[in-house]
């Protein structure tokens, strides 16, 4: 486990992944229990940063930067860099982390596995980040649908407080930091970092304009860093094993262990932990057992509903990391991969995706509020055989009209799958269109 996996060439194009030993979800029975977690070296990283002199907050941030860790929530922003955006400590001005466990991106179900099987890794990660940025309180935002998991985590968190691992004077040091679990109530938009802040503040979750960025004005106007659950779960690994180790796992520019959520038409769907940079074909064929029933692969969506769909002929040699996926014409997103077999109707698929964004648009700003509905109308009309080729043109134009013109990225996320699905499966859409705009329905 100490060796750098794939370290030499920074790619997962070998079979080395087969010997990968899991670190986010290591195979330990009942690891979700505080005692088991501590028994297996848990909270040693926290103890180290709080008690060892070399681990100043600045050093923890440096190590995180050096590790190359990038956010696992979708955007892939370098985590250490984000932490360094926090302004210097100001007396009387609280500082917060908002830990994003909203996990509403369709096709994404990996953070829930961390909450279920290794919640203390998340807590420990939160507390290490709290030390690094001198945080007063962390609000762990968990979507309301995860009620059962919230219940489990609440009891583990209570234990953590009892044992002196969170709250006042953690582990007997001078450092105090709280963790509060905030339960959502059903709104995809809350996964967007600034609307998550609004939701924690008890408001309708309308995204905020940036700047100011959360690091300047976050929760209640105070410096705040928003990080995904899985991102923070990496922090103890970096402390325990070193930034170099982390940087050596997986893809060179997008390193580390990652939880792949594979769903759709595969034999063995589920969450798998492997290094970044895995070949998509390996993930489907070797990890998830291949396309179900021996069917042919038609398309995949590599990282949640918002990222562009890739045709089967586009994934040869493509690995799961930001760089490779960008070259291939998609994105890493949440690494929640949807696999579609040859029987999939791409128009119906897109229709459902557009419906999702229409339903989840918060309605705050114009292009998204109005555009998502218009798009759903057009795709529905095409799917029902009443569309025209002109509708396809309008759809692509509407994508341009929405993208980059809204407060948050939901409009972008709604536009990308439309544009890419039409471009990459145009013949399917054309086949469903009426051939003349003058034809009478």
């Amino acid at each position, binding site marked *: 486990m100490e060796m750098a996996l794939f370290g030499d060439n920074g790619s997962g194009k070998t079979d080395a992944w087969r010997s990968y030993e899991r670190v986010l979800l290591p195979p330990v029975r009942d690891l979700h229990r505080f005692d088991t977690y501590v028994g297996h070296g848990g909270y040693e990283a926290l103890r180290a940063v709080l008690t060892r002199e070399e681990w100043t907050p600045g050093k923890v941030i440096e190590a995180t930067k050096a590790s190359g860790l990038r956010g696992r929530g979708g955007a892939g922003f370098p985590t250490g860099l984000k932490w360094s955006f926090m302004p210097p400590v100001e007396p009387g001005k609280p500082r917060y982390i908002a830990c994003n466990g909203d996990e509403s991106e369709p096709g994404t179900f990996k953070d829930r596995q961390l909450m279920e099987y290794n919640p203390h890794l998340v807590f420990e990660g939160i507390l290490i980040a709290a030390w690094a940025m001198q945080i007063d309180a962390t609000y762990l935002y968990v979507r309301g649908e995860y009620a059962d998991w919230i219940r489990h985590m609440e009891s583990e968190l209570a234990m953590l407080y009892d044992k002196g691992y969170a709250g006042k004077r953690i582990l007997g040091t001078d450092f105090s930091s709280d963790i509060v679990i905030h339960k959502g109530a059903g709104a995809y938009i809350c996964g967007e970092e600034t609307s998550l802040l609004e939701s924690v503040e008890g408001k309708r979750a309308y995204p905020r304009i940036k700047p100011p960025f959360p690091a300047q004005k976050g929760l209640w106007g105070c410096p705040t860093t928003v990080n995904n659950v899985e991102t923070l779960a990496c922090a103890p690994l970096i402390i325990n094993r070193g930034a170099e180790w982390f940087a050596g796992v997986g893809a060179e520019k997008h390193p580390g262990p990652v939880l792949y959520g594979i769903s759709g038409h595969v034999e063995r769907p589920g969450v798998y932990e492997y290094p970044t940079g895995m070949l998509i074909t390996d993930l489907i064929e070797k990890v998830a057992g291949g396309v179900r029933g021996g069917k042919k692969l038609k398309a995949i969506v590599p990282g949640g509903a918002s990222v562009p769909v890739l045709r089967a002929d586009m994934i040869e040699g493509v690995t799961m990391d930001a760089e490779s996926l960008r070259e291939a014409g998609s994105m890493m997103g949440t690494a929640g991969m949807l696999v579609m077999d040859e029987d999939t109707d791409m128009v119906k698929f897109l229709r459902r995706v557009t419906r999702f964004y229409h339903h989840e648009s918060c309605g705050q700003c114009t292009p998204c*509020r*109005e555009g998502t509905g218009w798009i759903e109308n057009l795709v529905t009309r095409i799917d029902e055989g009443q569309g025209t080729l002109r509708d396809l043109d309008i759809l692509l134009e509407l994508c341009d009209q929405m993208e980059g*013109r809204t407060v948050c990225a939901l409009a972008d996320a709604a536009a990308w799958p439309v544009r890419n699905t039409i471009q990459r499966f145009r013949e399917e859409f054309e086949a469903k269109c009426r051939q003349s705009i003058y034809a009478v329905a």
Partner: protein
Amino acid sequence: MPKITIDNKAYAFEGQPKLLQFCLDHGVELPHFCYHPALSVPANCRQCLVEVGMPVRDRETGEIARNDDGEPIIRWGPKMTTSCSVDMADGMAVRTHRSSELVEQAQKDNLEFLLINHPLDCPICDQAGHCPLQNQTYKYGPEGSRFEFRKVQKPKKVVLGPRVMLDGERCINCTRCTRFTDEVSKSHQLTIIERGVKNYPMTPPGEVFDDPYSMNVIDICPVGALTSIDFRFRARIWEMSSAPSITVTNARGANCSYWVRDNLVLRITPRANPHINDYWLPDEDRATYPRFNEQRPDGPRIRGDEGLQPADWETAYARASELLGAADGSNILFLGSPYATVEDNYLLCKLAAALGASPPAYIPHIEPGAGDGWLITDDKTPNAEGCRRLGVHPVDPALVRARLEAGEIAALYALEDDPVASGLFQREEIQDIPVVLHTYHTTNETLAAADVALPAAMVVETVGSYVSEDGHAQRVWPAKAIRGVNRTLRMEMGVSRLDSHGTPFDRWHNAANQVHCKPSWEMLPNIARGLGLEWADASPKEIMREIAQHIGAFEGATYENMGSSGVRLTEIGTLA
């Protein structure tokens, strides 16, 4: 001083203005809906997008990199930005629709989106004609719509409260109304409900939108979603003229516009004045407009054997002079009025002094606890402070009663108030006063005792000044014409009434609704001359200049200084 370049033109700026406000202040029009200078900036309408760039700086020297022409090289942002939310910075470059096709297209695209679920009911919408959405669509919007689906249907004709009605379909979710109730009036009576395209503003169930400032949301609504229950469908905007003025409901002196058609006041809306009311007006100030139209007198009257009989002005003046002249000056009670202008009260003071009477006093109209510390005051008159500064003080009812009982009141001159209704005199008591001269606005209880009843022009018909509770002197312009036009008024009519639509529908020379009255500053000199005093006719402007010159409490309060937003008078310590 830091500089910014907008459409290749350089502007210097100070402080940290937001880009949109700066553009608007400098005549660079940018379309926008959600932005309002007095509210927070949500940047949700996305209409004011512009391209913003910053100069490229040399990494080592920090110097601004320049091209061969010596122009700074600009690195443009990857996306367009809402100008309402941009903090300006030195060297910033901006491209609006005037120099960027991208911005021009974005404005079109955004308007297309705004309109897909907006009803095409402009012909019957109250907002039509002064609707930002309509105007900006004409100017910046696409020519047609490509939207061929069912529009979202939302609740219409929803009575939000006693004064405000909602049409949910017209709403573009700019949230100005909810921001107003959250940030300005702080009544928190409105919220956006639902989500996404179903969003619209609403009160929570069981709550009534009865905020004393509720009607401001009608003014700031950039579409016709929020309309006035009272004014709805009463007039099209282009049928009316409006005149700048102030409200007279209380002593705050809030600035307003009186909207008039054919000499009927149809509504009152706020006029921005940062010193007094910003952009706002309390609902009670707006509700008073019928008093300018109803119960108005029809010319002067003189008491004869069969009660008050119509007379012409000369006869009425002569009778008034005759009655006043017959009384001993020291036995004449002059009542000034906090409803009347400074000029009118001043002339009354002069008359009292000339006749050797005690200075006029006024009847205060205070409702303790009615005020809210903002735009509503306990004092329900517009000019008590003006009276005070003239040396006209609240009347002492005990003293008046004592004089009445001692038979020391031979004559009463009651200026523009109702001494009976306000309880200074009982109905029977006032009959005991031998002579009652009364100038009045609307039919009232004192009239029954009047020997000469002289109808007086109201704030919407005159020129004059008022001083607010906190010493802000402001002048008003005539909004509607009266019968028997005065030359000064006639000249002011032409400049006071904004006829922005070139409307052929409003006719101020239409006699049907002209009230047969005169301003007190015209009546008083006529009466004075009848008493043998050598008073020349003077316009209110001249009267005010005289006041400003001679009375320290009005120093600087000339019409020139007051302009359209008034002048703050210096605090007066002790007044004689």
